[in-house]
């Protein structure tokens, strides 16, 4: 009690300055707060609200609370209003995760050697190579995906090349999951290479030498020294690739032919031709929840790894 009494005057003196500082940081940060609020947080709340709204008879929706959007993911409403389990949309969610996971894995497999190679180059060549990795970003994504259609499609570059080597004419590699995956890997690759490169670049080369010195061959060195020490970069790259891949729309629509949907195209359909905004919003919220779970899990794992003595 005496203690707090003694401290009281000091606290009084400090208060005005603290408040000034508080005001400054409040007003100074206001623009970015508003931007974040309006551009990022508000839309999420709107989608969350729409997902529990009621679908209007001719498209649009009314603000009546309704969980039909969510139940539609799992159940079909029959003529008499009874709910019937349909795996249709679950399958799409499963496919989406499968394709996004495959994209991430393939990107990792390619990005690690590429990043390692770049990191071993002299400084000036390194800068050029990193620039080249980011180069595709400068061309519109739609154009790049169309370019893949030209490569893989009927009478495209690859089929005509194979024809030269005696393969049957008129082959097409388009409109299947393989084509979708190819384009997804292609568009995501720089997002994987850059963070992986950053962490491999930071890796102390003498640690690799120390591993070889202590009888570790290349494989042991990769598994026991390089991968554990570059794990943060690999995880960052995996998140950067996996999360946007879950929402991919262009690749499945253009390359996959749109027959085999992914969550992204499904959502787009509901807001567009399907005219079922609450359902679209419900799928979007589900996707977001799944991504959040994935990210929280990753973060917790990382924290646990850090916490180990």
């Amino acid at each position: 009690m005496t203690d707090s009494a003694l401290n009281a005057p000091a606290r009084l003196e400090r208060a005005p300055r603290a408040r000034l500082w508080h005001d400054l940081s409040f007003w100074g940060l206001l623009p970015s707060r508003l931007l974040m609020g309006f551009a990022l947080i508000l839309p999420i709340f709107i989608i969350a609200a729409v997902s529990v709204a009621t679908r209007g008879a001719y498209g649009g929706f009314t603000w009546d609370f309704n969980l039909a959007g969510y139940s539609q993911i799992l159940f079909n409403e029959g003529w008499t209003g009874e709910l019937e389990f349909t795996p249709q949309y679950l399958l799409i969610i499963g496919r989406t995760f499968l394709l996004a996971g495959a994209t991430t894995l393939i990107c990792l497999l390619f990005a690690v050697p590429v990043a390692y190679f770049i990191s071993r180059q002299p400084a000036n060549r390194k800068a050029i190579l990193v620039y080249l990795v980011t180069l595709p970003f400068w061309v519109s994504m739609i154009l790049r995906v169309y370019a893949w259609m030209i490569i893989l499609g009927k009478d495209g570059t690859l089929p005509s090349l194979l024809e030269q080597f005696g393969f049957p004419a008129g082959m097409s590699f388009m409109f299947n999951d393989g084509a979708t995956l190819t384009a997804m890997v292609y568009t995501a690759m720089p997002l994987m290479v850059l963070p992986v490169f950053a962490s491999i670049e930071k890796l102390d080369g003498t640690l690799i030498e120390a591993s070889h010195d202590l009888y570790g061959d290349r494989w042991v060195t990769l598994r026991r020294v390089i991968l554990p020490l570059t794990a943060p970069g690999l995880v960052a790259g995996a998140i950067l690739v996996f999360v946007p891949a879950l929402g991919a729309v262009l690749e499945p629509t253009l390359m996959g032919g749109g027959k085999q949907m992914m969550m992204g195209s499904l959502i787009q359909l509901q807001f567009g031709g399907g005219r079922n905004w609450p359902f679209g919003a419900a799928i979007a919220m589900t996707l977001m929840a799944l991504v959040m779970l994935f990210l929280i899990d990753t973060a917790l794992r990382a924290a646990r790894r850090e916490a180990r003595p």
Partner: protein
Amino acid sequence: MTHAKAIEVQSVSKHFGAYQALKSVSFHIASNEFFTMLGPSGCGKTTLLRMLAGFENPDTGSILLNGQEVVSIPPHKRRVNTVFQSYALFPHMTLEQNVAYGLENLGWEKGRIKNRVGEMLERVHMSAMATRKPTKLSGGQRQRIALARALAPEPEVLLLDEPLSALDLKLRQAMRDELRTLQRDTGITFVFVTHDQEEALDMSDRIAVLGGGEVQQIGTPTEIYEEPVNRFVADFVGETNFLDIEVLETLGGQATVRTPFGLDITVPAAGITAKGRATLSVRPEKINLGNQAQGITFEGRVTNKNYMGGYTHYTLDVAGTELRASRRNASREGDTIPLGATVPVGFVAGSARVLAV
């Protein structure tokens, strides 16, 4: 099978681009030897060491470990371990795991690894921290773990690249003794790299002095210090006076020479046969002053003096030539020669060396 020569380096040369780091270097290192490569910065010490470890290949020449050519053998297949200058401990592994790493790669079985790791940690006084990670260790502690890790697999040769340079002075002295003891106890051949001549003289069985990408001299610490073969070695190892002299006559490893202050003296001159201009090297502590002056004696005037407690360093003017002398203050009255005094100066003929210009 053990080979008397643990390492043979034969006419090894190495270019980095246009720069020639090593020009035809040859020497051998005996088994169980504490061998030091001493030389100024950039003389190619690390390059040589990395060749022994397998991280660098010579342009020409060959390297033999226990009589076996190893140039084409990758580092992980050489029974050689390195203590890196920056220690290079694996930051994601505990100290135990660091020490066990090499043993696991060699395929030792679990129980044996556990025993060996415990034994090595004990040996470097780090058992108490076995399960810690290296990031929070002090320099000296990291040093010990790096040593334990490199010695655990019982290599045929241990390579050490300036392992003491990152430690503070006191720790350095203690680690010198510890390293020397470790080498004696384990009987492993140590190849030690340093640019600190005192470290080299203190610890080594033999020293190779490197300079300009070449071996300048190889010998025991006494040979290197007392019988330098050229000006580079005499200058790099310890302090010395260089006098411009003229060789008048040579006979059986001795030469009669004329000193700049006009005295003709006969001194050791191994390898000198030509008459004419040469250099005489006399170390400051070999020059005696006042009533201690003996051997070849002449007179000099004290122009400067630095009292160091145990020693006093004098700068003398001998008929226009500058000489540095140091004198041990053996008694309370030791430091009695005043500045400006003219005193007898002398050195024993056998303690000077004639060197080529």
